[in-house]
């Protein structure tokens, strides 16, 4: 167990180094924007991985919670003048309650029926956001004021000083998002190593066996559903402030699919793996944009081929390969 947490600590350290090394390689504001988006979305994916990778429950509607968090912050701060942090916290509590109420009955469902139910919940949220034009601005979306802490504003267009250095708003936002991602990963790893995490993994292994040894499976499944929804809500709220604009697309089915694809592509159950999934899936369309008309065909093809040949995801497959090679070079017979 000590070894395991040491391993986890190492993962967190590597992630921190990568996050803070990125600004050494990019200067372009567009690239900062992309990196900030990736960090915020990766935070939501880390939360979704708790549900999918550890508890083994499928959600095809998680963007709904991301969108709810985003819109709650957008509306309360921009229309009603709330401060950003209370808005984010109240929004997260609201989303937690909704997830708990919805989660209780639907988590009884298994396999494809659970996929169907989560898909339906996500769709209903997106439809409401699309149609309540008076409050949400409808399909055109609505502008969002910058993030603020006690009257101090964080905007991608501002100028800030950090440790005596002048930094641009883009870089400041990126560093902020990076720190948030690190906190998200640290919290997730603590949860995984806690008794709750062990209970969840037992549910993934065999729900019946878990309940036989006294794990209250219904309680733990609802709990992790709520936690992953709160992750999505908080990241959605930050995303809304960062973008300065929200549209219902961030709550839609396509984005739900993107989120779960990031989890599966990176490697279910691996916190660092799913972050890699988020990075790859966000960067891929940028790389493919040069192909214009071919973009969609290539995206679909790459997605299909990766999942066919690496069904366990990118990081676990790479780790396996590395382990095999190490064994070989060590001169082992196996």
């Amino acid at each position: 167990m000590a070894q395991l947490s040491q391993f986890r600590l190492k993962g967190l350290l590597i992630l921190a180094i990568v996050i803070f090394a990125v600004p050494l390689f990019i200067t372009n504001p567009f690239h900062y924007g992309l990196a900030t988006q990736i960090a915020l979305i990766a935070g939501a994916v880390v939360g979704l991985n708790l549900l999918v990778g550890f508890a083994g429950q499928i959600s095809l509607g998680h963007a709904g919670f991301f969108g709810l968090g985003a819109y709650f912050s957008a509306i309360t701060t921009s229309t009603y003048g709330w401060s950003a942090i209370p808005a984010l916290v109240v929004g997260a509590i609201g989303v937690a309650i909704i997830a708990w109420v919805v989660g209780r009955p639907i988590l009884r469902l298994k396999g494809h029926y659970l996929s169907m139910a989560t898909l339906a919940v996500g769709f209903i949220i997106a439809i409401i956001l699309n149609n309540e034009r008076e409050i949400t601005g409808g399909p055109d979306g609505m502008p969002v004021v910058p993030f603020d802490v006690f009257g101090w504003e964080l905007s991608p267009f501002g100028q800030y000083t950090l440790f005596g250095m002048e930094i641009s708003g883009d870089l400041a936002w990126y560093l902020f998002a990076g720190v948030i991602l690190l906190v998200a990963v640290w919290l997730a790893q603590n949860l995984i190593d806690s008794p709750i995490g062990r209970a969840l993994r037992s549910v993934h292994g065999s729900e019946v066996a878990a309940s036989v040894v006294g794990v209250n499976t219904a309680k733990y499944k609802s709990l992790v559903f709520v936690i992953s929804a709160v992750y999505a809500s908080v990241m959605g709220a930050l995303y809304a402030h960062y973008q300065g604009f929200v549209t219902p697309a961030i709550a839609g089915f396509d984005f739900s699919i993107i989120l779960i694809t990031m989890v599966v592509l990176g490697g279910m159950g691996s916190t660092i793996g799913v972050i890699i999934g988020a990075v790859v899936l966000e960067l891929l369309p940028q790389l493919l944009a040069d192909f214009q008309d071919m973009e969609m065909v290539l995206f679909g093809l790459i997605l299909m081929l990766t999942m066919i040949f690496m069904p366990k995801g990118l990081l676990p497959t790479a780790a396996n390969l590395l382990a095999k090679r190490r064994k070989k070079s060590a001169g082992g017979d196996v």
Partner: protein
Amino acid sequence: MFSEFLQYLFTGITIGATYALIALGFTLIYNASHVINFAQGEFLMVGGMATVSLTAMGVPMLLAVVLAVILAGVLGIALQRLAIAPAKNADVVTLIIITIGASIFIRGLAQLVWGKEYHVMANFSSDEPIQVFGAVLNTQSLWVLGVGAILVAVLVYFFTRTLTGKAILATSMNKDAARLVGIRTQVVLMLAFMVSALLGSIAGIVVAPITFTSYDIGIILGLKGFVAAAIGGLGSGMGAVVGGLALGVVEAMAAGYLSSDYKDAVAFSMILLVLFFLPRGLFGAKVVERV
């Protein structure tokens, strides 16, 4: 009052029949392989788009339909052989993502070949609608219902009277036992995907004059088919038909009496309600799980 109700009912049953055919396609593949095929809607798109473009090139309608259906069938086989079969040991979620990747790929190809515009297909017969008790019935609706009914009858015959149909059923019940009695289960899986694609493309062709067609209509149609199949109970043919019709009628009534903006929300609320009370849908089999 009554004519209004009748009007919504006609609309609902027409679109419901389409949903039923998509749901049947889902059911077929689900039974044979336990895969939920998120690319199901693309078969409808391919059927409709290929027919439109072939007739525009001067191919006679009937031949265009036959060619479009064959194209979809080949696509179904390719999907099973090239994408599903190589990943046979993958997780449920991984398989879902593979079929989603396939649907994006097919959509991308369609966009390359046929462009992004909406295409209009002429009604099969007269453009003159029929008046029934003050409600208007489009002749194309009769085509949809007629073709739907024939396809269901053919499927029933196929599964109860032919050896191939029975082989598919046997494989869905117990793959290992089916293999033991000499059924080549890989061929059966291929057949299931092919038949499902044929069903989808025919549905796509008959409904195209009503809904128009474009490269991206497959997503939402496929999802509605999935909803219909889940309402009926995954794996039940009867459930797929009932679920499809029920979904279509509820949607049309919601659009007519409540709000057309919220008709999809009503459809998705309906599936949640059904699953709250019947976790395996209306006709879903009660499966005893072995530990």
